């Protein structure tokens, strides 16, 4: 078979739209993510600042009103900060899928990417991962366990992408069936707050939602073109996209 005649899938740009108005902060996505991606129980010395939460729900209150914002890797597309700073190509913007991939086995733990990320969506393995005796038998074989001293983050559940690709190959399809692949947080949301799909497909649910009038992105003015969108009917929630007068007032007081 020559390279030309091979069924080639066209490049995808996986992205998400998170409807903030539907998030109840139940934490289902966080735990599902931890189980799917073999995140070890937090070390007894770990704090909120040294834990591993590739998916993290923030509780935000403003003047008595509350919103929950799930924050994960934003899969930045333009001059992706973590990709450009990594000295040894352990982070990559995958051309085929648009996923910003973190390869823990290449990473040497300099943590420069963590200082580069505006969303604090990257986590360092400060300790060796330890499971209670026997619990290692529940590890997901689709995802490699990380060792201490490396950085990790959301890879859009690459283990699930691999399974979907294998299935597509076995069925003789050129590309992944969209129904076969969605990250576990999308599946784990009881209120279906997260829409996932290919932003290159103009008619996909996610593309339409991302173009909606209520859609916004966090810190879009930094110019990194994140592929995680948020949407809310509430204006004060949309204002959380950037630091505004409220935050500045807080800052002055702090």
């Amino acid at each position, binding site marked *: 078979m020559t390279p030309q005649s091979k069924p080639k899938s066209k490049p995808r740009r996986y992205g998400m739209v998170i409807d903030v108005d539907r998030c109840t902060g139940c934490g289902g996505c966080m735990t599902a993510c931890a189980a799917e991606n073999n995140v070890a129980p937090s070390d007894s010395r770990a704090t909120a600042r040294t834990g591993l939460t590739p998916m993290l729900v923030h509780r935000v209150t403003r003047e008595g009103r509350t919103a929950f914002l799930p924050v994960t890797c934003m899969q930045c597309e333009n001059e992706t900060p973590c990709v450009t700073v990594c*000295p040894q190509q352990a982070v990559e913007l995958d051309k085929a899928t648009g996923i910003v991939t973190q390869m823990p086995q290449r990473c040497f733990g300099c943590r420069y990417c963590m200082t580069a990320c505006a969303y604090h969506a990257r986590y360092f393995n400060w300790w060796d991962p330890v499971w209670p005796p026997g619990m290692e038998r529940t590890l997901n074989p689709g995802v490699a366990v990380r060792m201490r001293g490396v950085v990790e983050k959301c890879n859009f559940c690459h283990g699930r992408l691999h399974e979907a690709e294998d299935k597509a190959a076995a069925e003789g399809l050129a590309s992944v069936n969209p129904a076969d692949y969605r990250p576990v947080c999308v599946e784990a949301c009881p209120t279906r707050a997260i829409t996932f799909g290919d932003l290159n497909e103009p008619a996909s649910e996610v593309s339409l939602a991302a173009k909606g009038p209520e859609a916004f992105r966090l810190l879009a003015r930094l110019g990194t073109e994140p592929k995680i969108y948020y949407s809310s009917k509430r204006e004060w929630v949309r204002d959380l996209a950037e630091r505004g007068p409220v935050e500045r007032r807080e800052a002055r007081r702090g």
Partner: protein
Amino acid sequence: MASSALTDSRWIARGIDRSAAGPFALWLTPWFVLLALGVYAAWRCLYYGLGETNMDNRFAFGLWIFLDLAIIALGAGAFFTGFLVYLMRIKELKAVLNSAVVLGFICYSGAVAVLAIDVGQPMRAWFTFWHPNTHSMLTEVTFCISLYLAVLAFEYVPLVLKNRRLRKTTSFLVFEHHMHIVVPVLAAVGTLLSFFHQGSLGGLYGVLRGRPFAFREGFSIWPTTFFLFILSAIAVGPSFLILTTRLVEKITGKKLVPRTVFEKLGFISGLLLALYVAAKSVDTLIWLNVTSPAAGFAPWEHYAYRPYGLWLMAAEIGLFGLLPAALLLYRKTRERGVWLLTGAALACCGVMLNRFVLTVQTLALPTLAFDEFMQYMPNWQEVATFGGVVAYGVILYSISYRYLPLFPKERELAAESREEVNHVSER
């Protein structure tokens, strides 16, 4: 004691005065204790992982990176003096050149040692050479620093071979002589490498698009911090040489370098510092009015969190910038030892403050609307590891000072002072 002093004296150059081996060993003892503590702390970090430190996901860089940046800036005296001596032909600075090389070697090797502990997987560090990401400032830093450390080691070798005992081996003497021919070449290579890594250390922060406090526009691929770091490093390098040399003179009670050399160094430092302050001020104004607002951040917002207030900027530009520049440029103050030292000390503090602000304040400030301002405090493991590096530096310098001709003018000055017993240099 007496016999050990006897054996030791065969290694010390003729015509210069060194303390007996006993007191020298006594001087080294506390530093060896500190070194041992540092080695223990470093071992804990390597064996148990970096959870041993107080760094966290937000403060991914901490005390170590800040001090690494600081000592690399201060160690810039090594390449810059080489540059001044061999390329600018300012021959009188040769009086401090050997000392500068040793200081540079200590600063750089110490920094590399701390980095090896700071990274989570030191055994994979060579991946940077095998799979380099050419877009990364850190790649540039890694390549330049490791090559420059090799250059410094090469510059160190002839110095070692000048030892009284080693000179007795003819092949060493021949080797050393040949090395002398390449030293100017090494100085040129070192200058080039140093320019790039001092710059790319600044670039390290300037490219952080996600951290509006640090992010700067620039020329081509280099943000303005690239040039500011070069300028500030070469500005304080000579100042650091003044400080360390004066400190050695004070401790040993000897005159090692002619006064005029200090003044020359002070003038160069002051001139460059003035240039740096001017450039830094322009850069700050552009950042406050253009770069930061474009990213959606009000300029003063970065200084709204205590203790990182506007006073930091004022201190950096005024107290640690303009003031030392003035002290070092103005002939009357420069010629007064106290003011020269004050100026040099302020300049060194200034560059440390600058590196601190870029490392710690950058990470402490919130970016997302629902972020928090965070504080960080190093723990004993971090402090002790660095203390170990300081101890290593003191030990290596002490040994070098004792056995190697760090200050070629020392013998001459000693003879002079013996002649003019009554004349005592100001204390």
